[in-house]
């Protein structure tokens, strides 16, 4: 058996609107329509009779108050006379607060631009301060908490080996296939080794490794620090006289600076190995020829530049993660926003820095 549908009645008797039945959330919209339909003309009057009301909730009270406010705005008289016991109990339950202050006006455009610029300047200042603090702290190895540093190295380094290795090998394989397809047309299959080796070691190895580390470890740093920030753990460290930079930032930054070059070295090797597989299995090059062409193409400077780039990449990813983490304020939602912002900023940084290094090394090497 279905529940009876909620019913209310509204009948106009001269200047008196008699409401009855159940005035509740389900009938509040119809009640508003009835009140609007019978609203007094400007300067007129309406008396609302609630003697027949069997039930009343806050939605109905809201509709009545709204109708009264509209009538007052039109200069009409609108009031309740005659209230059933049920309605009286409901209406007595709710008290009105003081008049609401007007909502603040929207910020003028120039002011908003100024506030944005000031916030950006403050954030940049905080970032540079963090960079300076951590760099000075890194210069003193006694400040490093060894246990936390090793823990971070394991998480950021050894646990990242499988994913970084797999992606690097597949990337080398893809590069080799794509270049083989073009070079074969000119009978230059052998140069697949040169192309894959140089592309992996100079560009793709460091960049792909750094992007993976940014997504995996940079985001983790930002999320972890932001969570500690919003749960007052960082405040607790400060009150205990512990420096959050030394306690939290240093082990993470030192670990990422160490592991990113090592991961890059492995990515370079596995990327070349991916190309080697294509060369030997698909292009029928001998193993010795492929290896000798790769060694011939790569100068020691290529490997050094790869390591240097990855070191700078790792430093930047770590700093960006820490910066966004320490900037977090508010609740759990802020942790998510902070993490996303840190990954986006890290990838942006990697692309810009990668571009800068490409131009620099092209000119220098």
């Amino acid at each position, binding site marked *: 058996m279905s529940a009876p549908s909620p019913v209310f009645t509204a009948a106009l008797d001269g200047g008196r609107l008699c409401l009855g039945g159940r005035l509740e959330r389900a009938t509040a919209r119809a009640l508003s329509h009835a009140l609007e339909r019978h609203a007094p003309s400007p300067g007129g009057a309406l008396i609302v009779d609630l003697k027949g009301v069997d039930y009343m909730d806050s939605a109905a009270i809201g509709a009545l108050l709204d109708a009264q406010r509209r009538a007052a705005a039109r200069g009409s008289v609108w*009031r309740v006379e005659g209230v059933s016991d049920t309605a009286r109990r409901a209406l007595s339950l709710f008290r009105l607060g003081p008049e609401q202050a007007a909502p603040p006006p929207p910020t003028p455009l120039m002011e908003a631009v100024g506030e944005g610029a000031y916030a950006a300047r403050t954030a940049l200042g905080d970032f540079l301060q963090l960079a300076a603090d951590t760099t000075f702290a890194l210069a003193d190895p006694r400040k490093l908490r060894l246990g936390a540093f090793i823990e971070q190295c394991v998480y950021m380094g050894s646990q990242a080996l499988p994913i970084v290795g797999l992606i690097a090998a597949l990337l080398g394989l893809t590069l080799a296939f794509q270049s083989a397809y073009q070079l074969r047309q000119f009978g230059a299959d052998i140069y697949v080794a040169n192309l894959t080796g140089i592309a992996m070691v100079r560009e793709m190895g460091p960049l792909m490794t750094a992007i993976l580390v940014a997504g995996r470890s940079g985001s983790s740093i930002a999320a972890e620090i932001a969570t500690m920030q919003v749960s007052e753990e960082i405040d607790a460290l400060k009150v205990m*006289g512990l420096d959050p930079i030394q306690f939290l930032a240093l082990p993470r930054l030192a670990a990422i600076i160490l592991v990113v070059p090592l991961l890059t070295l492995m990515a370079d090797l596995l990327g070349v190995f991916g190309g080697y597989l294509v060369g030997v299995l698909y292009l029928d090059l001998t193993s010795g020829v492929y290896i000798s062409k790769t060694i011939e193409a790569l100068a020691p400077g290529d490997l050094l530049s790869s390591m240097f780039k990855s070191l700078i990449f790792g430093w930047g990813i770590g700093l960006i993660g820490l910066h966004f983490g320490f900037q977090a304020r508010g609740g759990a939602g802020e942790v998510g926003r902070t993490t996303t912002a840190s990954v986006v900023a890290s990838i942006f940084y990697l692309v810009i820095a990668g571009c800068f290094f490409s131009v620099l090394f092209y000119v220098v090497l």
Partner: protein
Amino acid sequence: MVHDLVARYGARTILNGVNLRVEPGEIRVILGGSGCGKSTLLKHCIGLIPPAEGRVELLGQPLHALEGAARTALLTRIGMLFQNGALLGSLTIGENVALPLEAHTDLSPAVILEIVRLKLAMVEMSHAEHLLPSEISGGMRKRAALARAMALDPDLLFCDEPSAGLDPLTSRELDETLLRLRDRFGMAVVVVTHELASIETIADRVIFLSAGRPLADDTYQRVRQHDHPEISSFFARVAAGEMRGGPSALEVLTKGGH
């Protein structure tokens, strides 16, 4: 120890001319409705926020003017119990309590372990030494955080709503622990709390804040009998709006206007 403190967040003034003095061996309670500036006052007292105006002195030293080793040395003489404990989630309860001892003393690991066990026993948390904060209840986390705040035997202990979210029994136990600490070690304790039962049990003197200004600053009994409507409504557990007699919907609708 707090002199004419003014605190601002941007253009908003949160505290305006607050003075607070805490004597050794007393429990001082900071009271007031939500948003009156209690937590802001506490954050200034423990050095997390620098004052816009005025000054904060802890144990006779200007906390915000100190830097480096001098500031750290002063901070080791205070303890802070945060509202949610603020235990480090990656460390066990024992490691959390050991943290200040490892950072600020040259004690051997074996001695530190003994101290950690003493402190955990003091708050009846010995069984949780090897557990992570996520593995224990909210009340246990607060007790563990109290053990950490007490690790260096501070002269001054700050507590931010120690009873919030606890059942009456756990809340009572925590109050008794604070009283024991005060009585046995003679430390001064500053507590921010809303819990009337807790205030009645522990408070020696009370400062009542309203909209960033002190309404009353006296012994608990005198503040309890204060005739300011906001204070009397607070102790009578009646909403201030109701005490002020905000119009009911019935009055508004029958009188014909808001």
